C-alpha cells in the first residue's frame, strides 16, 4: 500500500498515461486542491473500470454537488452532475431505465448523509443495482469548511467556531442497518485496496455501499488528515467472513477505523430481479414483527 502516490494525479499524468488508465479520464483537469484525497479515489475508480474491462459508453455516473460531486466531469463516461443530495435517486432512475448500464452514484458526506440522507435507507432496502461511492472527508468542502454529518464531535469548523456539537453519524453502521447487501470502507490513500474493493462492488448485483475516507487538506488540518489516517489505519481482519452480518455490525461499532469489506450478501436479489418475480422469502433483512 503506497500512500499519496496518486494523490495529485495530474502531476503524474505521463506516468498514468503509460499505464493506460487515461482511457477513463477526460481532458478536464480536476479542480481539486493539490493533496486532496479525491485524486486517489479517481485513480482507483479508473483502475477498477479497467480491470473489469467496462466500455466507457456503458458507464453512467451520477453525482451530487460538492467537491466530490465534480467527479463525473473528469471521467470519460456518460456523466450527470445533478443537484445536491440527489445522486441516489437519479442513479436509481438510470438503472431502472437501463439495466444494461453500469451505474455509479458519487457524493460527499454532506450530499449522501446530510441533505440526501433520506434516500439511503430506501435504495439499500430496495437493493437497486448501483454502486455508491461516498467520498467522506468529514467536512463540507465546496462551501468552504462547514460541519458535515461525519465531522467529529467538538471539531472547530467554519460553521461551528466553538466546536461541532453534533455526534457524527456512522456511515457503515447505517448502511448495514438499512440492509445494504454490499458494504465496505476504503481509505483514499490506498489505491490498490480501493481498486480491489471497487471491482468487487461494481460486480455485485445489487446495491453496493462504499464508504471512502478521504482527507480534505484544505479545511481539516486536525482530524481526518493523511498523517492520522496512516497512523491509525487498520484492515478488516483476514478471518472476517463477509457473509457474517452480525460480525459486520460489531466491527462497524468499533470506535477505531477499520478498512475493508464488511459485508457481502451475493444471494440477495436486486430490485429488478425482484420485480421480475423471482421473489424469495428469505430476501429480507427485516427482523421486526
Amino acid at each position: 500500500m503506497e500512500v499519496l502516490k496518486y494523490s495529485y494525479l495530474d502531476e503524474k499524468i505521463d506516468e498514468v498515461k503509460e499505464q493506460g488508465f487515461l482511457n477513463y479520464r477526460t481532458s478536464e483537469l480536476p479542480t481539486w486542491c493539490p493533496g486532496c484525497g479525491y485524486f486517489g479515489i479517481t485513480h482507483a475508480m479508473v483502475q477498477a473500470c479497467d480491470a473489469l474491462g467496462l466500455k466507457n459508453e456503458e458507464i453512467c455516473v451520477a453525482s451530487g454537488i460538492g467537491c466530490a460531486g465534480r467527479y463525473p466531469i473528469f471521467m470519460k463516461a456518460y456523466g450527470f452532475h445533478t443537484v445536491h443530495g440527489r445522486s441516489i435517486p437519479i442513479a436509481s432512475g438510470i438503472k431502472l431505465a437501463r439495466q444494461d448500464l453500469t451505474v455509479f452514484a458519487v457524493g460527499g458526506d454532506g450530499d449522501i448523509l446530510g441533505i440526501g440522507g433520506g434516500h439511503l435507507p430506501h435504495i439499500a432496502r430496495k437493493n437497486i443495482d448501483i454502486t455508491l461511492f461516498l467520498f467522506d472527508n468529514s467536512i463540507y468542502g465546496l462551501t468552504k469548511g462547514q460541519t458535515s454529518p461525519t465531522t467529529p464531535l467538538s471539531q472547530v469548523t467554519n460553521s461551528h467556531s466553538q466546536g461541532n456539537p453534533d455526534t457524527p453519524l456512522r456511515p457503515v453502521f447505517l448502511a448495514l442497518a438499512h440492509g445494504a447487501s454490499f458494504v465496505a470502507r476504503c481509505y483514499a490513500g490506498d489505491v490498490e485496496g480501493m481498486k480491489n474493493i471497487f471491482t468487487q462492488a461494481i460486480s455485485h448485483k445489487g446495491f453496493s455501499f462504499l464508504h471512502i475516507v478521504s482527507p480534505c487538506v484544505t479545511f481539516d488540518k486536525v482530524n481526518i488528515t493523511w498523517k492520522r489516517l496512516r497512523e491509525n489505519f487498520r484492515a478488516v481482519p483476514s478471518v472476517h467472513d463477509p457473509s457474517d452480518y452480525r460480525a459486520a455490525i460489531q466491527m462497524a461499532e468499533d470506535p477505531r477505523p477499520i478498512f475493508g469489506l464488511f459485508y457481502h450478501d451475493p444471494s440477495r436479489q436486486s430490485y429488478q430481479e425482484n420485480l421480475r418475480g423471482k421473489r424469495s422469502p428469505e430476501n429480507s433483512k427485516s427482523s421486526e414483527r
Partner: protein
Amino acid sequence: MTNVDIVIEICGSAGEGTISAGEILSRFMSSQGFEIMSFDSYPSEIRGFGKCVAHSRISNRKILSPGKYADILIALKDAHSISQLPSLRETGIVIYDNKPPNYLEEDKSIAGWIEPGMISYGVPLLELAQKAAGNSRGRNMVAIGALAALFQIDDEAMKASIRSRYAKKKQIVIDSNLNSFQEGFEWSKKNITKIDPYTFRNVRLKKSNKSRAIINGNQAVAQAALDSGLHLYAGYPITPATKIMEILSKELPKKGGIMIQTEDEIAAIGNVVGAGFAGKRAMTATSGPGFSLMTELANLAVMAEVPAVIINSQRGGPSTGVPTKTEQSDLNIALSGGSGDSPRIVIAPTTVEECYLGVSLALYLAEKYQTLVVVLLDFFLSNSIRNIPMPEPINKKWLKGNIAPTKTELKDYKRFKNTESGISPRAIPGTPGGMFVTTGLEHSEQGKPQYDRETHHQMTRKRFRKIQNAINEAPKPQWRGPKKDISVGVIAWGSTAGSAQEAVIKAQKEGIKAALMSSMLISPLPADSFRKFSKACQKILVPELNYSGQFANYLAPYLNRPIERLNMVTGLPMSAEDILDKIREMAN
C-alpha cells in the same frame, strides 16, 4: 321523443354507500346510451361522518360542465343534505328518508327545510332496507329503486347493472342490494303520486354511446402513458393523483415497464430525471405539496436538458390545504416553480379526453425538446367520470421524439450545441463516442461547467428559444364563437373551459356577442392567437378557480389591457351559470 338534461345528486355520510350508488347510476345511464359527467365530493378523512355527494349530469346531448344546480337530490343523511339544498334548483325534487318519528331529531329532518316550489317525495328508506336485508346498509339501493320508479327507468336493466357492479361479491351481498332496490322500486310505484315533469323515457339515444368506456381523468392519464411508451413511473401517493400510480402499478409491468413507489416526491422526480437521461420515457404524478418538493429537481431537467414529465393534479391550497376539493391554484409553480429563469412546457387539458391527449403530447414534447413538461389536472378532472369516446390512437409521430446526433456530429460532439432551433442532438448512454457530462451548473456547448457572461446569456436564451416551436406541434388554441366585434371574450383554461364554453353558448342564445378562447398549451403561450382574440374583444374575462387570478396575471404582460376576473375558491368546479352571470354583467 324528448331531450333530457338532468342533474342528480346523492348526499350522505362517508360509509353510507353514497358514492357507490352514484357510480351504479352513472354506469347504468351510460349503458342506456346517455352521456354522463359524474363527480364525487368527499371529506379527506378515512372515516368520520363527513359529507359525501355523488353528483351526476345525465343527458342525451353533449355535456360541457357538471351543472351547478341539481334537479334531483337524494338525501341519504338529512343533516348533510340540508346543507346541500342551496345547490338544488328552485323547482327541484328531493327524495328523502321518511323515517318513523322516533328516529327524528329536531331540526335535523330535511322535510322541514324544503322550500315552496320544490317537490319532495318521502320514502321510508331505512324501514324498507331493514325489511329487504335486515340492516340499514341498503338505504342507498332503496333510494335508487325509488328513483327508477319515479322517473321511469327500466328496473330490469337497472338490476342487471347492480348485479354486475357486485359481481365479485358474495351472493348474499348481491341479493340484499337487489332486494333493497326492489323494495324501493315497488313501494314508490305503489305509494307515490308523481307530480314532477322529469322522465328518462322516450329519449332519443345514440346506440353507439352504449359501448363507450367509462373513464375519469386519472384513468385517461394512465391509459395515455401506457399507449405512449412510458417505461418508468415513479411516484408517491397523494390525493388526487394516487390512482394514476395504482393503475400503472398493475398495467405498466404487463408492457415491460416499471412502477416504483419511492420514499418521497423528491426521489420520484429524481428517478424520472435519471430515466430521462438514460433515454427512456418516464413520468410522475402528484399534487401541490408534492409538486412543491419536486421543483428543485424539476429545474435540473430544464438546466441539464433532460426529458421529464410531471402530472400535477391540483387541489385546494396552500399547504396541505383542501385535499379533496378542486382548485386551479398551482399554475404559478407550474410556470415558474423552482429557482431561476426556467422555461418549461405546461399543458392543461380541459376535458377528460384532453387528459389522454395531453399526456401523450407531454411525453413526446419532453423527449423532443429535452426539458420539463408539466401537465396540470385538477381534482375535478382527475375524478370527473365521462363516457366519452377515447381520442384517436396516439399520433404515431409522438411515439418517437429524440433527435440523436449523426456520425459527423459525434466526431466533435457538442451535446449542448447552440443550434438555431435551440434543440441539440442528444446521445443516449450506451452510444459509443457520445459520452458527455450534463450538469445543473451553467455549461458550455460540451456540457462543461462555465460561468462567463456570454455562456450564461446564450444558454439561457437557448433554453427559452427551444421550446417555442412546441406551439406548432400542440393542438391549436380553440376560438369558439364570433371572430370580431365580440362584446365579452372569455379566456378560460383547464377544467374551467368546459363551463366557460357552455356559458358562452348560453350567452349567445341570449343575444350577447360572447366568444371563448382556450388553449391546452399554456407555456409556451400561443401568444399570437391570444392577442388576436383580445383585439377582437371589447372586454376580456378570465374565470378561474383560484383567488389571485394566476392565469389572468400570466396573460397580462401579453395583452397589456385590463382583464376582468372571476375567481372562486369554494372547492367546487366553476359552473356555467357563474360565468354566464358575469358575462351578462359585463355585457351591460
